[in-house]
């Protein structure tokens, strides 16, 4: 409830920078109030069109924050992301944010030996998270996985930071050959993380949950779901989560998108 009071609608967040690598896009937006309040793992809902096709806003993790600006990093796949990819510098974007509860790094949690895993576009919030962890003086390892080398466009961005980066590709064109979960599991003993953060498709999240559970390490996972509103009004985005005892269809947008791995019920 506290977080949600901070939600803001900024109908004219200015796009100040835009670049792309293939169908991956990075957009920087000036939106002082939202940027200043943003926490890693939170997201925005962007209005990609002023027509009724597509009708709904689209959710994007906050990829980084600098002063009055925030960045999003996304892959253009469907109609909404394609329209967003077509926006130009100087155009305004109508956004809601910061939304949801991000990664919990307060109370010393972030100060530990931390590992963060991002699969594909799921890397988006990991960058913001890693920066905040580093600022806390934490020892950070980032796993970054994708299909091919072309799906790891942020490699250099991460390399420029004072952290350990481990890459994987399914075709072996860069780093470890295989899934990022495989690489992550194989490095478990060596890294011995005290806390794991991850973001990616459901199947990957389920595997991370399994691996961390087996190793007795707490994990926080950022989930995706189709969202009608992004701010708790539609009850459309639910997943089954163990809440104060009972298993409930729980609103990802409001109670999440980040949940402790052991509270997520996999179907």
């Amino acid at each position: 409830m506290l977080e949600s009071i901070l939600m803001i609608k900024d109908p004219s967040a200015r796009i100040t920078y835009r670049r792309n690598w293939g169908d991956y896009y990075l957009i920087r937006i000036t939106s002082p109030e939202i940027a200043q309040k943003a926490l890693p793992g939170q997201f925005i809902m962007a209005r990609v069109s002023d027509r009724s096709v597509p009708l709904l806003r689209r959710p994007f993790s906050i990829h980084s924050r600098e002063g009055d600006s925030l960045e999003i990093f996304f892959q253009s796949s469907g109609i909404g992301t394609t329209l967003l990819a077509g926006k130009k510098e100087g155009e305004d974007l109508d956004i809601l944010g910061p939304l949801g509860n991000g990664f919990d790094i307060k109370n010393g949690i972030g100060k530990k030996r931390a590992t963060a895993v991002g699969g594909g576009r799921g890397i988006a919030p990991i960058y913001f998270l890693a920066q905040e962890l580093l600022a806390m003086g934490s020892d950070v390892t980032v796993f970054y996985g994708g299909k091919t080398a072309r799906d790891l466009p942020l490699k250099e961005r991460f390399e420029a930071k004072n952290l350990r980066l481990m890459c994987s590709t399914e075709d072996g064109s860069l780093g470890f050959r295989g899934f990022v979960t495989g690489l992550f599991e194989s490095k478990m003993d060596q890294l011995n993380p005290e806390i794991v953060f991850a973001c990616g498709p459901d199947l990957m999240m389920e595997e991370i949950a399994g691996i961390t559970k087996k190793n007795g390490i707490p994990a926080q996972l950022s989930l995706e779901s189709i969202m009608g509103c992004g701010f708790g009004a539609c009850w459309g985005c639910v997943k089954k989560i163990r809440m104060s005892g009972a298993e409930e269809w729980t609103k990802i947008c409001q109670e999440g998108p980040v949940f402790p791995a052991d509270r997520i019920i996999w179907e």
Partner: protein
Amino acid sequence: MTDLSVDLGFIKLKNPVIAASGTFGYGLEFAPFMDLKKLGGFVVKGLYFSPREGNPPPRIAETPSGMINAIGLQGVGVKNFADEILPELKKYDTSVFINVCGEDEEEYARVVDFLNGLEGIAAYELNISCPNVKKEGKCPAQDPEATYSVVKRVKEISRCPVITKLSPNVTDIVEIAQSAEEAGSDAISLVNTFLAMAIDIETQKTKIANVFGGLSGPAIKPLAVRMVFQAASVVNIPVLGMGGIATGGDAVEFMLAGASAVQVGTANFIDPDATIQIIREIETYCKNQNIDRVEEIIGKVQI
């Protein structure tokens, strides 16, 4: 200054814009984005007697100018609502309507009976028209007798005015509207969502886990306007019109068709302050058209 207030007989609203049930949470979700007391009112999410789990996801799918939902009326039940939410809502100084649901007539009566006498309820809106609960999408609002019977039952015990919310999934909206009126309903609201389905051609699965869901949004506006016009032409109780309203112009269209007030649904998801913008746009319309009281436009379409 245009007078935006509308008098429904049993209640006078500040303005004709009400947030629709199921699209405005319990109201509180919208407090960060807007001043709730500027609303004509809002209808809370549908309430069954007991808490309900709702449907499994996916619950939402986008369609051209519309969305399908099958939330399945997940909700807290009357007790939690009365204890924890209703007291909060009093702060906001606007008309709060309760969307009453039931598996059968008995449950509608139990919900109303439980809430009867609590403070801060402007009226009940009987949701006899939700298509998402049962797979076949059947509901009392598809049958004039069932409509009559449940409305009558609730009216007998209710201490608040009763609005009956109709389904658009019918051959003849007029006979259902008349049944509700005959049974003593103080007003009718329409339309609820249209029974719909969408298939993901890649997975060959339905996009909604519940198979069917309800279509809402701009796509349904021309169908909803038609039904509001037909219903308003025959009943003598106020009609609350809705279905795809996204702008002040849309709201005016429903009022010209015969609605005394409007409800805004899906638009709240896209713009949490949609209702506020719509109120402003209605005011601008009235000014441009030299209309002193918004009530003047109700039913004024020339045919």
